[in-house]
């Protein structure tokens, strides 16, 4: 437990994070998660965050050491896709009982690891610590170590029990576990000057596959993706990549930075949401690879691919302009960088009437301001009641948000699109942006809105 506290302090003090660096010494010590308010809190715990970050590794058995709640209430509930093994969608848990709480759960965990290995032959086992066994002092590191020796397979402890903090902290602790136990433990079969890592991309709804064809055309190989459509072996040998892209804001910045320190892999932070951001990301990947010794002609090839893809995307989007011009969008994106979508939505004539900046840095906020103007509404928080009113009073025509606020919009009889983890559509890269606009169009122009908003004939007005 003491060791875990040190680890938590360490990931909070992240030199790669601008937000962290802009704080005073004292503030920095407090860490980056806001103090939770009992009775007014929302969001997942550290265990949830660790699981989100690692579960997409498809050929691993993910065992949750805890009572049934932690796995039983939540398994197979995310849209991270795999092109091969389905093992990651199998729910494994020690389902600890009252007796285990009294006598300790270590032996049961050891036996559980054995059962999972014997029955499912995973490439590796990840063991997730949760609150109850952490509280009674089960040492999962020790159990994993002896299981690993006994069964001759990597058994990796993921020490991020829920009560240490938020989902974001859990993402980072998961990253620490990879750095400590996985990355650099194997060697790739071969390497090329075009090998990259993508860090913090979970392949939700298959978004990685909207990006991969672009990289394929440039001859760029994804050596490892952390962790979307991931394989244990690829991640274990990811230290041989030439460059890395860090996706999804700050979730795994510690991994990107430490891989740069340890293995000299330069990284940049980018996004595949939005047209210009996709182009920037491709440019940055090419630039870093060339800096690391790839032939310079890659830059020109990248530019010509960008020109071609952008032209095609804009042409497809143009069709929507007359249908969408002047429609008002309320954008609540959470993890996704708001500004990266904003510019593309504006380009098809949509007006952004408000956006969340809860997880954005000051720099992000400046960019949003530059795009939307000073009077744009930037919300740190928007209570559901207020959100409902905004929609009910038609201050927006459609809301784009995560599942949590879905019913606020729908009960106000307003169009809504899911752009969070449970979404069914993929919105990455050029094709993804067109898909997003297409979905907005379908949603806004669905014929139901007129009917459902009408009062019943026997009601007044």
């Amino acid at each position, binding site marked *: 437990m003491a060791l875990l506290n040190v680890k938590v302090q360490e990931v909070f003090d992240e030199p790669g994070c601008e937000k962290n660096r802009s704080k005073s010494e004292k503030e920095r010590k407090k860490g980056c998660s806001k103090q939770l308010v009992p*009775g007014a809190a929302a969001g997942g715990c550290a265990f949830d965050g660790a699981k989100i970050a690692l579960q997409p590794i498809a050929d691993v058995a993910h065992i949750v050491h805890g009572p049934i*709640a932690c796995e039983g209430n939540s398994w197979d509930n995310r849209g991270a896709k795999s092109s091969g093994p389905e093992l990651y969608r199998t729910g494994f848990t*020690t389902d600890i009982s009252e007796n285990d709480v009294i006598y300790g759960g270590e032996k049961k965990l050891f036996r559980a690891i054995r059962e999972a290995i014997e029955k499912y032959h995973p490439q590796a086992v990840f063991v997730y610590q949760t609150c109850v066994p952490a*509280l009674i002092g089960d040492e999962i590191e020790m159990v994993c170590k002896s299981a690993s020796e006994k069964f001759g397979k990597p058994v990796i402890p993921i020490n991020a029990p829920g009560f240490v903090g938020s989902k974001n902290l859990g993402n980072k602790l998961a990253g620490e576990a990879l750095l400590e136990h996985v990355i650099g433990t194997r060697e790739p079969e071969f390497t090329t000057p075009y090998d990259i890592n993508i860090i913090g991309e979970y392949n939700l709804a298959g978004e990685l596959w909207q990006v991969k064809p672009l990289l394929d055309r440039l001859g760029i190989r994804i050596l490892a993706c952390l962790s979307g459509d991931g394989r244990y072996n690829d991640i274990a040998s990811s230290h041989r990549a030439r460059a890395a892209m860090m996706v999804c804001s700050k979730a795994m910045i510690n991994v990107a930075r430490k891989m740069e320190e340890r293995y000299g892999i330069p990284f940049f932070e980018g996004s595949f949401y939005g047209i210009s951001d996709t182009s920037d990301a491709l440019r940055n990947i090419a630039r870093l690879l060339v800096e690391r010794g790839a032939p310079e002609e890659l830059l020109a090839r990248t530019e010509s691919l960008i020109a071609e893809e952008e032209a095609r995307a804009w042409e497809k989007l143009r069709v929507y302009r007359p249908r969408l011009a002047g429609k008002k969008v309320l954008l609540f994106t959470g993890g996704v960088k708001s500004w990266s979508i904003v510019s593309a939505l504006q380009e098809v004539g949509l007006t952004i009437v408000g956006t969340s900046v809860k997880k954005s840095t000051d720099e992000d906020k400046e960019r949003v301001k530059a795009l939307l103007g000073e009077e744009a509404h930037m919300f740190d928080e928007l209570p559901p009641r207020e959100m409902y009113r905004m929609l009910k009073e038609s201050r927006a025509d459609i809301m784009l948000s995560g599942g949590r606020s879905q019913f606020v919009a729908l009960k106000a009889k307003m169009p809504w699109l899911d752009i969070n983890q449970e979404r069914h559509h993929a919105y990455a890269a050029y094709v993804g942006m067109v898909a997003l606009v297409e979905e907005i169009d379908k949603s806004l122009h669905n014929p139901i809105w007129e009917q459902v908003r009408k009062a019943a004939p026997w009601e007044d007005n």
Partner: protein
Amino acid sequence: MAKVVSSRKSCSVNPLKMSQPIGGALAFMGIANAMPVLHGSQGCTAFGLVLFVRHFREAIPLQTTAMNEVSTILGGMENIEEALLNIHARAKPELIGLCTTGLTETRGEDIMGELKLIRSRHPELQELPIVFVETPDYKDSFQDGWANTVARIVCELVDKPRFPIPGQVNLLAGSHLTAADIEEIVDTIEAFGLKAVVLPDLSGSLDGHIPQDFSPTTIGGTKVREIRSMGGSLATIAIGRQMEKAAIELESRSGVSYTVFDRLTGLEENDRFLMHLSGLSGQPVPEKLRRRRSQLVDAMLDSHFHFGGKKIAIAAEPDLLWAIGALFAEMGAKISVAVTTTRSPLLERMPCEEVLIGDLEDLETRAGDSDLILTHSHGRQASRRLGIPLMRIGLPTFDRLGASHALNVGYRGSMKLIFQAANLLLEREDEDCKKPWGNGAAAAQIV
């Protein structure tokens, strides 16, 4: 007569079971203007919330005391106090339901005692009903959490009867009933000229309707004053064996006698239910219910061809397992696999050789030669791997729409269940006919 066996595995694979606290929280969601709170880490609440959102496709009121490592070790009373005050100030609920979790039960606290102190410190909480339930995650299951919570609600809120309320009956609804089920049972009770107070009433809160305005609490359900009045009712009807605990509690507090109906599926069970209502009300069975009975009989006759000798694998919580398993056994099917989550007196009575307290891996390894699988949405992977159709029952049903409106009780609900299963079996027979030596040839002639 079945032998009840507990799985001896150390690793539960593909869980069937969900935990007690969220069962408790859902029971509170059947009360009007209520706010359930889980006393645990924020993740305990977040997981439950996401699960219910996906099942009901509704906004879910569920809060957390947001325990962290320090507050867990030092004791969570300040967190409870702060949560109660914040919820009272922001959401203005008419009832707060407080469920413990594995995290807070591991340390153990005298929450009942502390709640008294908290109330005395804060006069604004004096009148607010706060119902506290112990629901450790590491014990029992979802159904138990629901049952324990309803018993606690009765214990805290039902007044000693001052005068009898003519024609009022209490309906204690088990966790396996959908909104549509509750509506059907209430309609039936009302058809005899009786009035039902339903506890908990998910048909008011999570049936999918459009409220007039935004509400941070539940948007319907049993009113607190209705619960208080339950002691004056004519009788209590409990649906599902799990509700007996609350029924006994109610009887011991107010003297209202109870009858438990273990299931409302199948012909004879529903006949018995109607005779009971007829006895309570002194009214004959209404014509429209007689008609429905006749429709069910016809459905049984039309469908029985497709059930005879068919092997059906079911995994569900005890009351749902019994309701569905017994019905299909009565239709001539063989219950080839029965998996459940927790103990119940019903398990020994199951019409199969063995009932296993286990998980969906147990179902999958045993269901290979079955014709139909019945379980919640998590059975989708096993169904696909085995190539056996899945009929989704119970919670969570997240990959199909309309879970709240699935009707599984009464003559009509029984008929729907029978048709739904028969159609899946029929489709399979059709598929089998395409195979050169398919065994569906005989059945195909009947169609």
